[in-house]
C-alpha cells in the first residue's frame, strides 16, 4: 500500500474526557530522523509510548513494514528506546547493561561480547565497560542507554527527551554524538523533545504537535521559513506579531494596513483573507534591517533598548501603535550609539513576512 517503513494511522488516545492524541496520521521512511516537537501535554510522548507499547491507543493503528504492532506486547516489538530518566540497571556494569537485551534473546556468548564491544566503541565508552552506572555522569549514562538500545539492531529507535536532564553544553555535545550515530548506523529514529533548537539541530523532519494534533510536519527549514500557522511561527524561532488589516491578496501576495496606518504589500499570505479582515503579520527578529536595501518595507519605530549579543544585537523597539517588537540585526550593521534611543525607520523584506488570521 505505502512505501512507509513505519506508519501511524489515525492514532487516537483518550484518558477519560481528555484526548491526548487526536487522529494522528504519519508515515516515516526507513532511516529517517523524525522529531516530535511540541509543548508539554501536546501528545508527542503519548504517541511515542503507543509505538513502544506502553500505552494502548483508543483507536487507530501503528504499522511497521505494513504489519500492525498493536497486538504485539512491548517486549516482543524489538524496538529500541532511550528514556528521559536514567534507566540503566543499577546493579549491572556498563557492559552487562548493554549485554542485557542480547542475553534475554539468548544470543551466543561470543556474539554478545563482540556486540557489546562494538556498541561501547560506537558511544565512545570502551574504557567504562566494568563501571557501575552510579559511577557515571548523566551524559555517560544516557550514552550507555543509547548503546543498550541499539545493541540488538532494532529497526526503530525511540528517544523520549533523553537530554532534558543534562546541562546545555553537555546536551549539545551529545546531540552531535546522536547525529553521528544516526549517520553511522542508519537506524530510523523517532525523537521527542520540547526544545526547538534540539529539534532543528537533529532532525530530518519535525512534526510539530499541538493539543494532540500535528500542526505541521516538514524539515526544519519548512517550519522556520514557511510556517503553516501562527502557532508554528511562534514555536519555531523567535517572531514578532503585528496587528494588521488585510486589504487584498493577489497571487498569494497580500497587502495589509498596519496599526500605524502604513501599507505593506508583497506579504506571504497563509490562507485566504477577506478585505478588512483582522490579521497578524509575523516578522522574524532577524528579518529586520537597519538600512533600506532593495525592496524593503518600512516600519517607523522608537528604539527603546540596544544590547550586544555577539554576532547580533538585540534591539527592543516600539512601533507607532505602541507595541514592543524584537529586532536582531547583525552587530556590524550599526554602532550601538547610533541607534540608541532614537526615532527611526527599520526595514524588512515582505517576502520573509507571513500573514495569519488573528
Amino acid at each position, binding site marked *: 500500500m505505502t512505501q512507509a517503513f513505519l506508519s501511524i494511522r489515525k492514532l487516537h488516545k483518550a484518558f477519560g474526557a481528555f484526548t491526548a492524541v487526536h487522529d494522528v496520521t504519519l508515515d516515516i521512511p526507513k532511516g529517517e530522523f523524525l522529531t516530535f516537537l511540541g509543548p508539554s501535554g501536546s501528545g508527542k510522548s503519548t504517541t511515542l509510548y503507543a509505538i513502544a507499547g506502553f500505552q494502548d491507543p483508543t483507536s487507530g493503528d501503528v504499522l511497521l513494514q505494513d504489519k500492525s504492532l498493536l497486538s504485539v506486547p512491548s*517486549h516482543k516489538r524489538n524496538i529500541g528506546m532511550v528514556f528521559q530518566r536514567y534507566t540503566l540497571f543499577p546493579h549491572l556494569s556498563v557492559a552487562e547493561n548493554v549485554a542485557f537485551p542480547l542475553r534475554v534473546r539468548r544470543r551466543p556468548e561470543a556474539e554478545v561480547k563482540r556486540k557489546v564491544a562494538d556498541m561501547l566503541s560506537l558511544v565512545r565508552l570502551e574504557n567504562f565497560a566494568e563501571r557501575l552506572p552510579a559511577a557515571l555522569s548523566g551524559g555517560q549514562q544516557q550514552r550507555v542507554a543509547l548503546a543498550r538500545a541499539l545493541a540488538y539492531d532494532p529497526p526503530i529507535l525511540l528517544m523520549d527527551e533523553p537530554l532534558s536532564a543534562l546541562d546545555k553544553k553537555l546536551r549539545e555535545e551529545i546531540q552531535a554524538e546522536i547525529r553521528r550515530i544516526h549517520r553511522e548506523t542508519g537506524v530510523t529514529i523517532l525523537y521527542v523533545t520540547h526544545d526547538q533548537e534540539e529539534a532543528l539541530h537533529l532532525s530530518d523532519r519535525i512534526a510539530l504537535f499541538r493539543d494532540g494534533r500535528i500542526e505541521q510536519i516538514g524539515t526544519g527549514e519548512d517550519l522556520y521559513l514557511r510556517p503553516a500557522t501562527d502557532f508554528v511561527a511562534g514555536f519555531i524561532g523567535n517572531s514578532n506579531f503585528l496587528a494588521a488589516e488585510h486589504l487584498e491578496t493577489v497571487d498569494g501576495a497580500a497587502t495589509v494596513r498596519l496599526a500605524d496606518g502604513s501599507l505593506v504589500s508583497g506579504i506571504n499570505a497563509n490562507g485566504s483573507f477577506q478585505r478588512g479582515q483582522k490579521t497578524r503579520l509575523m516578522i522574524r527578529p532577524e528579518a529586520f534591517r537597519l538600512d533600506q536595501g532593495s525592496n524593503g518595507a518600512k516600519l517607523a519605530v522608537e528604539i527603546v533598548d540596544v544590547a550586544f549579543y555577539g554576532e547580533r544585537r538585540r534591539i527592543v523597539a516600539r512601533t507607532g501603535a505602541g507595541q514592543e517588537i524584537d529586532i536582531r540585526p547583525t552587530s556590524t550593521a550599526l554602532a550601538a550609539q547610533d541607534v540608541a534611543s532614537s526615532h527611526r525607520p527599520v526595514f524588512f523584506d515582505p517576502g520573509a513576512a507571513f500573514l495569519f488570521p488573528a
Partner: protein
Amino acid sequence: MLLDYDRLGWLKVALLGFTTLVAAFLLLPVVFIVLLSFGSSRWLAFPPPGWTLKWYQELFADPSWIEAALTSARIATMTAILAVAIGLVASFALVRGQFRGREVLRGLLLTPMVLPVVVFAIAIYAFFLRLGLGGTTIGFVVAHTVLALPFAIIPIATALEGFDKSIEDAAIVCGASPLQAKLRITLPSIRIGIFSAAIFSFLASWDEVVVAIFMASPTLQTLPVKIWGSLRSDLTPVIAAASSLLVALTLALMIVTALLRRKLQT
C-alpha cells in the same frame, strides 16, 4: 541550621548527658543479664562473688535447650521466607497498584505492629485450636508470619518506592517479559530492602514470646518460651546464659545487616 550541634554551647553537655542516660537505661538490663550469666552465684547475686563458665556448660549439656534453640531458628527461618515472599507481592500491590481500598489494605497489613500482641495471641490461639494447628510448627510459622509481615513490607515497599519504574520499562523494551524484568532487574535493584525484610522478620519471630507461649506445646518450644518456662519453675543462671546467647545472636544479625547494607550501597 538553627539547631546546629556545634553551636549549642552548654546545651551540648546537657544533651550528651541525657542521651547517655537514655542509652544506659535501655542497655543496663542487658548488661546485667550478661554479667550474671558469667557469675558464680547460683542465686543470681549481684555483684557476682566470682566468675565462671559453668552455666554455659550446663546450657549446652541440656538437650532441651539446644532443641528449643533449633526450633526457634527453624520457625524464624520459615517465617522470614514466608514473610518476605508475601511482603514482596504485597509491596508491589501497595506501591504499584491502582485499586480501590489500597490504603485500607496497607493499614490492614500493618495492623499487627500496633495491635496489642496479647490480643492477637488469644485470638489466633482460639482460632488455631479449632483448626488443630495449635502446638504445630505450621501454626507457629503462620502466626509469626502475620506478626512479621509489617517488618517485611515496610523495607520492601520503601525500596520499591525508591525504584524508578522506567528502569523496569527499559528492561521490557530491551526484550524481557514483564516477569523476567521483575526477576532480573527490579528484585536485584531492591535487594537491600529484601535483605532487611528477611532479617527483621527473622528477628520478629526469633525473640517473640507472647504468641509463642500460646502456640507452644510440651514438645514444641521456642527459646523465648523455654526461658519463660524455666524462669517460672527454677530460677537458674542457665537462663541468664540462654538470654545472653539470644541477645548475642540478635546483635550479630543486626551488625551483619548494617555491614551488608553499607557494602551493597556503594
